[in-house]
């Protein structure tokens, strides 16, 4: 089971409180996590990755085990601690605006 921490506004849009738990079959990568997240919460489509190009929105970043994995390949395997659910996968909104 994968644990995903969403920014507060995306929790509101998804109608959830707290962390999100996802089951993923196969390799645990950023792409497979986001695919599973968007399948479970379709209203989040387009908010993290652009609908058409599939590119990350510029002011969002991804953290795993205290590492910024934003610029890693979306298909790179994430650490075992993420795959096992021991550590959450963070989707972070940039501190921007002032």
């Amino acid at each position, binding site marked *: 089971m994968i644990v995903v921490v969403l*920014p507060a*506004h*995306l929790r509101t*849009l*998804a*109608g*959830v409180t707290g962390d999100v738990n996802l089951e993923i079959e196969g390799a645990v990568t950023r792409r497979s996590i986001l695919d599973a997240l968007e399948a*479970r*919460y*379709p*209203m*989040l*489509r*387009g*908010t*993290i990755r*652009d*609908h*058409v190009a599939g590119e990350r*929105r*510029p*002011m*969002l970043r991804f953290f795993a085990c205290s590492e910024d994995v934003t610029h890693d390949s979306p298909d790179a395997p994430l650490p075992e601690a993420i795959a096992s659910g021991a550590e959450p996968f963070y989707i972070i*909104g*940039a501190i*921007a605006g002032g």
Partner: protein
Amino acid sequence: MKGSAVDPNRIYASQTSGWFGQIIQRSDDGGETWFQPGTPAGEATTSEDGMPKGESNKFVYDSSEETGKPLTTHQFYDGTLKPWVFKRVWHLEPSLDNPDVVYAGIEDAALFRSADGGQTWQELPALRGHGTGPQWQPGAGGLCLHTIILDPDNPQRIFVAISAAGAFRTDDGGATWKPINKGLHSLYIPDPTAEVGHCVHHIAKHPSNSNILFMQKHWDVLRSDDAGDNWHEISGNLPTDFGFAIDVHAHEPETVYVVPIKSDSEHYPPEGKLRVYRSRSGGNEWEPLTKGLPQENCYVNVLRDAMAIDSLDSCGVYFGTTGGQVYGSSDSGDTWAPIVRDLPPVLSVEVQTLS
């Protein structure tokens, strides 16, 4: 934000941010609760079974061979060419007779339509593809389609305005479009009378007349008596003819309101006095309306969608400022009072007249 003319409980709103992009919100209970169309209203959205797709934020240009137009490029500020990329929704305009039909004006400029209450969106591609699209360029706020006017007397007729391309009209429900910018004179473009390239800020029309339009351009207030085929300036004695908002009295088709702003680089009222100007003669002769409005040290702007008119006999007029005040007048503008203050910058003011 705008409510449906046929169902006052149905309100559409556009939310956009640099973090999460475009979100469409809808209320079916007059604003009590909101939801993204395509997701269940007020229900938990965590069911793994049968959750509807939430694609209300998906705006994809129609470039299909069957129905669309090829995606070309448009001009950027510096004259370089840029591909069309969806950025945000600037304006939502509900149909006049069907609460599930709503139009969206987007950046980069195009017109979209939803026939299912905002759940899914399809482009009306003939506007972007009618021929002048590659010449369009952004205004200071982006290449945005910000004004959509539907005609109660002619469902096939739609007017739109784009910064900084100009005004356009269809008379066949969006199948074909033509620029309607003859008479506009813009000194800030290489050919001041070009067919497109004008920074139209907003257009207003009285519901009773399909042919009379009023325009606030970047500079200049103009009028057309032939549905936009020809325009002439009616700035008259305005202290400045720069501005954004423009609207028409509910029952007097020749009574027009503008809020003059000092200049394109100084977005506040001349002399720091917040004044609405009213013409009761269809333009050229304007009177300042000041009672109840701050007449010193006021340095706010009034944006294009931040003025609204109600349909009561006495005609209420409302506008919001970038300083977070909303002012209302219940007597056609003679006197004003603040309705609310200290909001964030007001982008949109809409009014519903409920019986």
